[in-house]
């Protein structure tokens, strides 16, 4: 029989679970919005976005060509079920505020309150070098540490970057992910809006992370931010993104493109804590280039969304370049996390690792899908791929689709995969030390994901653990 403490704890946990809607899932009234495009995708919609942003001709042409690619490509039938997305039932561009401020006080009240509730201004004060906050289609707040600015670091939203640093943007734009790469990249290229532009000059080390926070508020919204990070020789930067959305009964779509160029000996870490509400399709293309002796790291945590299809990739194009992908996926009821990573060794003495951890519960489905390729000529390359899946109950599902292609005889490649269930013995053992069943289960899960959380800045590790706890409610039944 449950003790009063256990009952109280259960109630508390039930309270935690109920608060996605309150903490993240709330929505603001759409009063005072500057512009909301009608639903649906057409040449006119794409042209109006470009016109509204007063873009140069080449960008307008780029968008229209991308739209043709999008329309001519079939919807992918692999991965998750994309058949239910109605591309005509989506608002492709919503401008909530007329301006992008550098002062929180200038941000419209409702929007500012939202970011206050999400803790963004507080995080900025405490441990960030710069913050960008995107609300609907555009960035409403952007600020970067003055000292970094004086060193030549650029951290701004992509729309502003296109206006103020057009040549730099154009030099790298879509060179890592061309619009015709895949159907969703084509869609993003046609209707992109917002996202971050980061430029770190040679030798500059950005000590505290830069962060962007993405928020969808409108129902049936499509958010299509575009991020480009250029880390010059010997530079160092850590970029973090987080995202949440209101809980609606109809679906929204998030389809970003993220391109990263790590020049020789540069180091870039890109951390994502994805916590979209469970009515969001999250279909993202992320790709990075690591030149000679550069290090690229993706830390990718997928907790929310209805369906996520995301495989951050790294092209190790220079000798001795190094790539790491740490991926964690949590699939609860009604969720499918189709995640993983790709690493291509295209130069000698390159090294990499992929660590993937997934947890499925309440009928959720987690998929690891990955590619490791050692190209001809990438001699003396080393890589290790580890995929671990944890199933919390009989109804949940885990699949692993690893692909490994080796073109050199002297490559040193290892692959390990495990699927496990939380064992009754483990829970019993912890219970015998005074923990209740829920606590025991949470402790096992936290231990399972610890290799990923230890790589996160402390504030995010705490947040991630809290989110996992929130998702874990009711997992022992």
């Amino acid at each position, binding site marked *: 029989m449950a003790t009063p403490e256990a009952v109280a704890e259960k109630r508390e946990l039930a309270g935690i679970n109920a608060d996605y809607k309150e903490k993240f899932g709330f929505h603001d009234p759409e009063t005072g919005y500057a512009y909301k495009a009608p639903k649906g995708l057409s040449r006119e919609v794409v042209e109006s976005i470009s016109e509204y942003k007063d873009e140069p001709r080449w960008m307008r042409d780029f968008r229209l060509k991308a739209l043709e690619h999008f329309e001519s490509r079939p919807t992918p039938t692999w991965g998750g079920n994309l058949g239910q997305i109605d591309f005509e039932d989506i608002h492709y561009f919503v401008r909530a505020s007329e301006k992008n401020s550098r002062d929180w006080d200038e941000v419209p009240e409702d929007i500012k309150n939202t970011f206050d509730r999400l803790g963004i201004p507080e995080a900025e004060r405490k441990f960030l070098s710069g913050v960008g906050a995107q609300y609907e289609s555009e960035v409403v707040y952007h600020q970067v540490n003055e000292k970094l600015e004086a060193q030549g670091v650029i951290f701004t939203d992509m729309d502003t970057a296109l206006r103020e640093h057009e040549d730099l943007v154009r030099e790298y734009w879509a*060179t890592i992910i061309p619009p*015709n*790469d895949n159907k969703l990249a084509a869609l993003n290229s046609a209707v992109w809006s917002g996202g971050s532009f980061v430029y770190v000059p040679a030798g500059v080390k950005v000590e505290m992370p830069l962060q962007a926070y993405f928020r969808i508020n409108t129902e049936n919204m499509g958010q299509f931010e575009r991020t480009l990070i250029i880390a010059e020789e010997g530079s160092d930067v850590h970029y973090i993104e987080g995202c949440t959305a209101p809980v609606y009964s109809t679906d929204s779509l998030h389809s970003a493109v993220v391109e990263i160029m790590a020049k020789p000996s540069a180091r870039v870490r890109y951390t994502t804590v994805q916590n979209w509400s469970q009515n969001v399709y999250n279909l993202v293309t992320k*790709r990075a280039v690591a030149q000679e002796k550069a290090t690229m790291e993706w830390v990718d945590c997928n907790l929310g969304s209805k369906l996520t299809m995301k495989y951050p990739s790294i092209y190790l194009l220079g000798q001795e370049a190094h790539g790491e992908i740490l991926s964690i996926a949590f699939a609860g009821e009604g969720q499918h996390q189709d995640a993983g990573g790709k690493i291509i060794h*295209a130069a000698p003495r390159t090294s990499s690792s992929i660590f993937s951890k997934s947890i499925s519960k309440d009928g959720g489905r987690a998929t690891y899908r990955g590619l490791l390729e050692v*190209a001809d000529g990438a001699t003396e390359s080393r890589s290790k791929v580890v995929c671990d899946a944890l199933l919390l109950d009989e109804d949940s599902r885990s699949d692993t689709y690893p692909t490994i292609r080796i073109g050199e005889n002297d490559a040193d490649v290892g692959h390990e995969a495990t699927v496990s269930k939380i064992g009754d013995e483990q829970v019993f053992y912890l219970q015998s030390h005074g923990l209740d069943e829920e606590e025991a289960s949470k402790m096992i899960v936290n231990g399972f994901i610890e290799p990923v959380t230890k790589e996160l800045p402390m504030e995010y590790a705490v947040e991630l653990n809290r989110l996992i706890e929130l998702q874990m409610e009711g997992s022992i039944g």
Partner: protein
Amino acid sequence: MRLVEHDGVKIGVFNCDGTLYAIEDRCSHDDGPLAEGEFDGSTCTVECPRHGSLFDLTTGRPKTLPAYAPVRTFTTAVVDDTIVLEV
């Protein structure tokens, strides 16, 4: 662009402002056909119709991902009004 075949190898021949370039009709990314992609004479590039990699016809090197390896190129010459490729 003219597509020709020699010994089972398909080759695309391009005219960039009067200079002729020839590349194998096979994208280094996934071996798909390349030469019939969008050709830009002013930059002397061709875009792979399958995944969008842009190739420099003068060198065969990709200027954008997802391809990272060069495609095979062939030396061209005009002899008595006939284009000759060195294979």
